[in-house]
């Protein structure tokens, strides 16, 4: 299965249920899209992430009822520096969707998805712990894997692999 070039043109992707639902229900929320290696990625406006996730979960055409994973990527030195990555899963259509949000490196924060999926709580705490991204509205945002008095956020690209000595 040789690789096919990625499709990044929104016009070509507008038939996809997730793209169509977002364009109709939340105009302006969708910033970009990419279809690569049979996986669809959508970039959402950080201010509209919770309405967008709600729409994708509750709309009958998309029905991404399950959140499989939340993580983040550090794109230092780019700005906005971080991407928070949500991996959604639809049981009915047996399909995954990746939703991404760009977060600024200067005081990174975003709304918490725990209002939709409380189970996202430890995942967001992990991102807070390892990347230093704050989640507004999270019930208990503390470090989860590292000790409470740890300095720095290890998964940031400017944190040395060996740690600070």
């Amino acid at each position: 299965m040789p690789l096919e070039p990625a499709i990044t043109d929104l016009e070509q992707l507008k038939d996809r249920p997730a793209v169509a639902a977002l364009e109709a229900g939340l105009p302006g929320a969708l910033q970009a899209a990419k279809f690569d290696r049979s996986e669809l990625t959508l970039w959402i406006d950080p201010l509209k992430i919770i309405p967008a996730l709600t729409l994708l979960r509750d709309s009958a055409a998309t029905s991404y009822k399950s959140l499989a994973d939340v993580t983040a990527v550090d794109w230092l030195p780019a700005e906005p520096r971080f991407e928070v990555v949500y991996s959604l899963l639809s049981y009915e259509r047996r399909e995954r969707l990746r939703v991404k949000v760009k977060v600024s490196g200067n005081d990174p924060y975003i709304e918490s998805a725990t209002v939709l999926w409380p189970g996202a709580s430890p995942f967001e705490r992990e991102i807070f712990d390892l990347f230093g991204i704050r989640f507004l509205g999270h019930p208990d945002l503390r470090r989860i894997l590292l000790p409470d008095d740890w300095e720095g956020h290890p998964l940031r690209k400017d944190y040395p692999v060996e740690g600070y000595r």
Partner: protein
Amino acid sequence: MPATLDYFRAIPVVETIGGDRTMVLNMGPQHPSTHGVLRLVVEIDGETVVRIRPDIGYLHTGIEKTCEAKFYQQVIPMTDRIDYLAPMANNLAYVLAVEKLLGLEVPPRAMWIRLMLSELTRISSHLVWLGTHAMDIGAMTVFLYCFREREEILKMYEMVAGQRMMTSYFRVGGLSMNLPLGFLDYLKNFTNYFPARIEQYSDLLTSNPIWMVRTKGVAKISKEDAMELMLTGPTARASGIDWDLRRDMPYGGYENLEFKVPLATEGDVYARYMVRMEELRQSLGMVKQAMANLPDGPIKADAPKIVLPDREKMKTQMESLIHHFKIVTEGFNVPEGEVYQGIESPRGEMGYYVVSDGTAKPYRVHMRAPSFANLNAIGPMCEGNLLADVVAAIGSIDIILGDVDR
């Protein structure tokens, strides 16, 4: 606001819900029934659990960070160490993700061997779960029987990979080496006597009155809560979520196998036990199918710049020697992009999110660990129930702390 959100609010150090009636108790991190180093902060009112919060991270080794400093092929040995009871499942998820990034297809023989060993891994992992879970509740004998059969599977691991636990047998583009002589006979012998052994465990537990009292109706979780809490795998299927990645989103050749996905609706410890017992039988069936369908042929993809050459070729052909040297010293470049590969590990959805920036080292590797998400269930399962049932609940979720903390 979903009600289950309350399970994630911290227990304040000084103010307990019950005032003077309740006390806060630390269970673990060194406690035999927590299967590793899980610390549970429990607020109890007499024998009843009022609130319970897991405290994790005692086994955190920063594997995700380490991966970013390794070549793609050097990451494989680290994936073994995440879920150390199901090393092949982790290998599989990672190599499938990298193969998807590369657009690489593995030959049929490698695919079938992978399927066979993945299902064998599920059996071995479930055997450890059954043995330790039963021992936690007080049935000591089952443990000895389960480890007897697990030993046989570990011997087979050793035959194929040279290692009993950290196998690193699956490689990007195929397998590290072919099956050794006599392996299939050994496995065939195992599949012949194993069905009787499953019935043996079942006879000890399934209709045992003590077992039923300790498990039926204990640590219940509803389907709605299971959805909100992102549970997967047998824990979710015992609550009525009819979802199995092997059947619903087949990967790595599972579309070629015939099997049933066991389901239960009660959502208690007994239901989870029944689901996993049936999975043992189904997995055995899949191992048999894979053995019957196993074709001859190469075990590595024909991609000399990615897959290490055969030892024999390396010694006789200049190009192979050069490729070998290049792969070992410089790694192989992976085209830019990102993939998420989810597989059904013995514990639930094991997902690898791999981001490539076009170099020989992954830009980011994230493991979506099933135990990490399934630990969410501990609150709704235990609150309002007896302290003694906490042990049954932990055992029935089947968490691995290496998987939780990574």
